[in-house]
């Protein structure tokens, strides 16, 4: 069964003033274990779609089912808890709490989930090792490079054991080496941890690493390609 079902989602910003149709009827299903890129030019609606899937924004029309539950029906406070326990987030920047060290940032989200102190510290350290910055575990975000910060963010997203991880342009602020390293690491997590990743990008090198590529244009999906067998899922 699909973990994400986007059903005929429309999003209109500023409906009362100058309406902007950011999404104009999007249908989409994501299965567990996917490593999917949402691509498209700037302004095509990538962020809007990810925000709606992540329960950070609500669709003007349509439904989003996550694990079969319709999140567009949920109240704001319900959504916060839902996000905490079901969705991992990696943002373009400002991912981390500046006053906490790398390991504390990862452990923090588990504390929000009431995981025991022992378990969260152990898991945080394991995850930092997996994302490859165990040595910097005790540094604060300001003492880490952009690439390292994004790694901590991925570790944090994994820490809460979400159904899937959303990453809106996670490499936008990174140089090409860091970009490629981060994507390799995410692909590894996808393999090893069976973590589902959905990320948006307009960087061709990032697109190349994805297993499924969904292309948006003007708020509509114009192509959806699964790379392993190179078949078009829908057009």
């Amino acid at each position, binding site marked *: 069964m699909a973990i994400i079902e986007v059903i005929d989602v429309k999003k209109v910003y500023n409906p009362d003033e100058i309406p902007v149709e950011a999404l104009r009827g999007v249908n989409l299903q994501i299965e567990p274990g996917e490593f999917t890129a949402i691509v498209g030019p700037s302004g095509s609606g990538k962020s809007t779609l990810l925000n709606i899937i992540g329960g950070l924004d609500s669709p003007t029309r349509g439904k989003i089912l996550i694990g079969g539950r319709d999140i567009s029906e949920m109240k704001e406070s319900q959504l*916060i808890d839902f996000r905490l326990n079901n969705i991992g987030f990696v943002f373009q920047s400002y991912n981390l709490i500046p006053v906490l060290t790398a390991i504390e940032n990862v452990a923090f989200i588990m504390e*929000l*989930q009431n995981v025991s102190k022992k378990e969260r510290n152990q898991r945080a350290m394991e995850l930092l090792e997996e994302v490859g910055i165990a040595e910097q575990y005790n540094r604060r975000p300001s003492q880490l490079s952009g690439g390292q910060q994004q790694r901590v963010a991925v570790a944090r997203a994994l820490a809460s054991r979400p159904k899937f991880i959303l990453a809106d342009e996670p490499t936008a602020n990174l140089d090409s080496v860091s970009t490629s390293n981060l994507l390799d690491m995410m692909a590894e997590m996808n393999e090893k941890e069976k973590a589902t990743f959905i990320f948006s990008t307009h960087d061709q090198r990032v697109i190349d690493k994805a297993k499924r590529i969904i292309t948006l244009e003007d708020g509509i999906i114009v192509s959806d390609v699964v790379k392993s067998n190179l078949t078009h899922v829908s057009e």
Partner: protein
Amino acid sequence: MLFFIAWRNVWRQRIRSLVIIMAMIVGVWGLTLAIGFINAFTDSYLDNIVKYELAHMQVHHPKFKDDFDLKYDLKEGDVQLDKIKQIEGVKGVTARSIVSAMISSSKTASGVKVIGIDRKEEPTVSNVEDLIIEGEYLDGKMRNPIILGEKLAEKLNVKIRSKLVLTFQNELGDITAAAFRVNGIYKAQSPKLNEGSVFVRARDIARSIGAENKVNEVAILLEPTANEDSVYKDVSNIYQQYLVEKWSDIAPEIEMLRSQSKISTTILVTIFMLALVFGIVNTMLMAVLERIRELGMLMAIGMNKIRVFSMILFETFYLGLISCPIGLFFGYLTLSYFSYNGFDLSSYAKGLEDIGYSTVVYPTLAFQQYAGLAAGIFITALLGAMYPAFKAIRLKPVEALNKI
């Protein structure tokens, strides 16, 4: 970890936090001093009244108030000073004969209240003896000694050993006069005492008027630990046909003074708390506004509103936790110093003495006042943090994250 994050957040903007902390320390310090001094003024005034004028309780004939006259006396068998002395909490008791008289020197004359005392018992109640600045109390070999305040002495232009004539009305309405000699001059804070009263021995009044010794006032001083109400009950039982009054009932200015000092304290505290609210709102609002994106991120990843709200309140709580004890401690130290050494105002406020205050005051603060201040500061600070905290939880994660 929320406490920990909040604590670290306080130190993100070190200077800003230090500024508000310093301001709070200075404010709290100043406030404790100000309240301590208000207490001191009130206490010194009340203390003077008790020590030199009223004692704690007085017993009179019900009509005595209308007319200081020996005809409204307490009958011999009724005085019962020994019985009063037995009451628990009573430190001293004395009987007085009070009359109004005209006092004349070679220069001028003036109406005064003549307080006739019992030389032996009076010092157990009144400390006027301590106020003598020239000559001595009602001792010595001189016939008809009198002591008076320096203001009155100045007005009458008399010195030690000067002769004064007191003119009384006796019980039959006849005028009698008697010569007295200035034995001592005292300096009292109270204008009533300094200008309007003189002290003589009760038996000298009796002799001058040519009547037997009568008393029309019994004054009672209590131990500091005494329960005023219970003593009052016991005294009232002994003097059922007479009027027993507590000091605060006798002098109307006492209530006024107390409410005045309460009002001044309230005004000061209100001003301080208002400043505190503005300071906290300002500081915490800045703290929220400059990390909108971070707060958006926190709510996006699943930090609920209660936690975000608490975090802002904890940060405020820490500001109070640092500054409040330090401010109170400085206040305590300063007050301790002055309450031990006294604070001499004479060079600042010449006029104070004339209206009944001491010029050396001993400021203090009761434990409850410290505790009340601390509680008030925390409550006010947290109230001030409410607005920024609400502002924080009303942020929409996406909008906050995209804020430039």
